[in-house]
């Protein structure tokens, strides 16, 4: 039964990839959505079955086939559902289904073949993502890990005729390759160390060992795995691809670059919680990288003008939170945030997609404003998403973010907690900056009546359409999820459910209370403070924001330019490689050594031929004479006494 979960989207992919261009859009969309919804239903059935089992035996395995056998080394293509992967498959198929449904409306203006191509990629992505989370050993996970990277590349570059989109796709792929290289090294080292690739066996073997006091093999394994996670989950130093990935269609940004694929790194750490727990050095690195990424991305998000880029930096920032949780050993809290974040970030992206759709491709916040009245559904759902991510009490983000901050504080990482809190303030501020700039106030002057396919059948061009039914449905369901999802974690139930996945050695006892009351109070205060900040600067007194930007123009410029990280990478890595390749490898080695050898051989032969071809006169008699002479000479040699 487990096999069906990734198989259904794969079948959807095959159908759409083979026959998609011959069928109409509704058929292609129905195949893709049907595959996803069916996969969701199977997942739900599997989870129901899982929950029915006693708490300490919650795992369902299925070995599909033996994949590799070589001597006593065997890897099975096997799938396993345990509480952790149960959460993941529900998120992937559930939110995936909604985004598929949303896409049927969002991509409606594409040509038939493009539409089918889009859905085939989306289905393929879902299949690989499900393999990633269901795989019961590193190798199967790696298949999914690479597969989602491929789909991410294909979908970022979906509009490949646009140079920036194809460039962004390549950037994402290459940056991910760097991380994947670390990941595969970590997997190999883990195999050398434990002799197996199965997660459970590795966890069992690792739990026999004590936590490493100094930096040893386990620390190295986990650090290499974490390098993979920084690539896939967009953490420092490899986060740079995610903001550019916004070149893809918005539902793709919502599904792949916010809700599911980018959380693969967090999931992978959760999956190897036992291993990571035995490498405290790595955990510290994970936590510090996580919180730094959260802060850095949050500050950049504060000044960006592209609505999707703000959300992208927000995603990077929230992923940083998840890694912070992982790093302080609060695996349950991290996965909890992953789960709630999937709802509200998907919601925010789809909401921004609805705005972009209505404005015919306009993404610049400065050209928006006052959309509240024209796009009421989008506005209200977006507002719920923004409240949820800011951590306003009662909504999903509050529970999970508070859990992470609380666990960070109680585990004694006060500085990390402080930075996390500051990031929380930034989160609320930049989210409400988007809300106010896009939906409140008046449309900026630059905004012009937009002409697109939409307006073609609408003579009153200035009137904007709110989300069509398919999009509105996804927005409303996700908004409900963003409100309610957090209640699953009330009283630590969510984390208790996950606990067996982080066993066999219980990593840390789960606190039953949701942190101390003071901490909760502080973080609520911070969230509200952030919203008030945004209210003041971006709604009440927009001039104040400009004045601030003027006063701190240096800082503002640094933030606008994303800390010049892309430029630094370009100067430190890309250019040296380019220069070495061009002047060293190409002009130095290839042209002046290899080419010279090859040409030299040819020229030698050519020079020798100048003499030899004189013999080739074409005169039959000359040939006969030489033949005769040759015979005489040979005979003479042998017969000469």
């Amino acid at each position, binding site marked *: 039964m487990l096999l069906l979960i990734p198989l259904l989207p794969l079948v959807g992919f095959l159908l759409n990839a083979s026959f998609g261009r011959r069928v109409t859009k509704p058929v292609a969309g129905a195949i893709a959505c049907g595959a996803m919804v069916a996969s969701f239903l199977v997942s739900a059935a599997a989870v129901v079955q899982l929950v029915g089992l006693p708490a300490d035996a919650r795992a369902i395995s299925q070995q599909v086939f033996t994949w590799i056998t070589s001597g006593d080394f065997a890897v099975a293509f096997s799938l396993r559902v345990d509480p952790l992967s149960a959460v993941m498959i529900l998120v992937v198929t559930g939110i995936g289904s909604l985004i598929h449904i949303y896409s049927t409306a969002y991509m409606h203006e594409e040509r038939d073949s493009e539409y089918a191509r889009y859905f085939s990629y989306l289905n393929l992505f879902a299949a690989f993502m499900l393999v990633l989370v269901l795989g019961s050993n590193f190798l199967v996970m790696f298949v999914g890990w690479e597969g989602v990277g491929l789909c991410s590349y294909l979908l970022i570059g979906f509009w490949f005729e646009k140079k920036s989109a194809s460039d962004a796709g390549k950037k994402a792929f290459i940056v991910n390759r760097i991380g994947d290289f670390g990941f595969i090294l970590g997997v190999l080292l883990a195999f050398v160390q434990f002799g197996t690739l199965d997660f459970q066996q590795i966890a069992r073997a690792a739990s026999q060992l004590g936590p490493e006091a100094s930096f040893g093999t386990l620390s190295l394994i986990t650090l290499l795995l974490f390098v993979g996670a920084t690539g896939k989950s967009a953490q420092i130093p490899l986060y740079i691809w995610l903001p550019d990935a916004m070149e893809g269609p918005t539902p793709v940004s919502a599904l792949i670059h916010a809700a599911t694929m980018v959380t693969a790194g967090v999931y992978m750490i959760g999956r190897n919680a036992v291993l990571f727990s035995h490498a405290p050095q790595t955990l510290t690195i994970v936590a510090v990288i996580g919180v730094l990424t959260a802060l850095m991305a949050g500050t950049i998000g504060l000044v960006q003008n592209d609505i999707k880029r703000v959300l992208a930096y927000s995603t990077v920032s929230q992923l940083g939170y998840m890694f912070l949780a992982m790093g302080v050993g609060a695996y349950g809290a991290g996965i909890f945030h992953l789960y709630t974040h999937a709802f509200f970030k998907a919601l925010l992206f789809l909401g921004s997609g609805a705005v972009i759709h209505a404005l015919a491709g306009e993404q610049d916040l400065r050209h928006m404003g006052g959309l509240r009245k024209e796009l009421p559904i989008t506005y209200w759902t977006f507002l719920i998403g923004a409240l949820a991510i800011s951590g306003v009490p009662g909504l999903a983000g509050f529970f999970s973010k508070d859990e992470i901050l609380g666990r960070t504080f109680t585990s004694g990482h006060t500085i990390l907690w402080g930075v996390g809190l500051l990031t929380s303030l930034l989160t609320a501020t930049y989210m409400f900056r988007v809300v106010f700039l896009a939906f409140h106030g008046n449309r900026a002057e630059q905004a012009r009546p937009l002409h697109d396919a939409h307006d073609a059948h609408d003579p009153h061009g200035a009137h904007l359409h709110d989300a069509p039914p398919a999009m509105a449905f996804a927005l409303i369901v996700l908004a409900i999820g963003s409100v309610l999802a957090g209640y699953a974690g009330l009283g630590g139930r969510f984390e208790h459910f996950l606990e067996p996945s982080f066993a066999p050695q219980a990593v840390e006892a789960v606190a039953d209370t949701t942190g101390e009351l003071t901490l909760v109070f502080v973080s609520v205060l911070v969230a509200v403070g952030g919203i008030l900040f945004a209210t003041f600067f971006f709604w009440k007194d927009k001039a104040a924001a400009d004045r601030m930007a003027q006063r701190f123009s240096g800082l503002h410029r640094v933030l606008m330019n994303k800390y010049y990280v892309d430029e630094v990478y370009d100067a430190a890595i890309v250019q040296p490689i380019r220069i070495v390749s061009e002047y060293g490898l190409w002009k130095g080695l290839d042209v002046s050594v290899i080419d010279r050898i090859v040409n030299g051989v040819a020229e030698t032969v050519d020079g020798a031929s100048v003499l030899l071809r004189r013999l080739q006169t*074409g*005169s*039959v*008699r000359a040939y*006969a004479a030489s033949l005769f002479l040759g015979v005489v000479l040979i005979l003479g040699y042998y017969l000469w006494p």
Partner: protein
Amino acid sequence: MSGLVPTPALSHYLILSAVLFTIGAAGVFVRRNIITVLLSIEIMLNAVNLTFVAVGRYRGTVDGQIITFFVMTVAAAEAAVGLAIVIGLFRHKESLNPDSFTALKW
């Protein structure tokens, strides 16, 4: 078997053969008609045949005669192919002079 006509010894056959061969070779080199050149080649081949037969008889074996049959077969084939080529060349160049066929060079 003695009589007025002395029985030829092996050396006589070989000398005759050498003379024939030389005539043939000289014909190949000096004649300006490609058909004559082919005829000269035939003479060379038959000089060799004579040697084979003579040596075979001298040694009392049939090997020389057998090889001669092979050579004759090959010579017949060669003549057929060679004359066909000559016809083709003539149609092409309106000439039988071997020196006019020098296209096969660098």
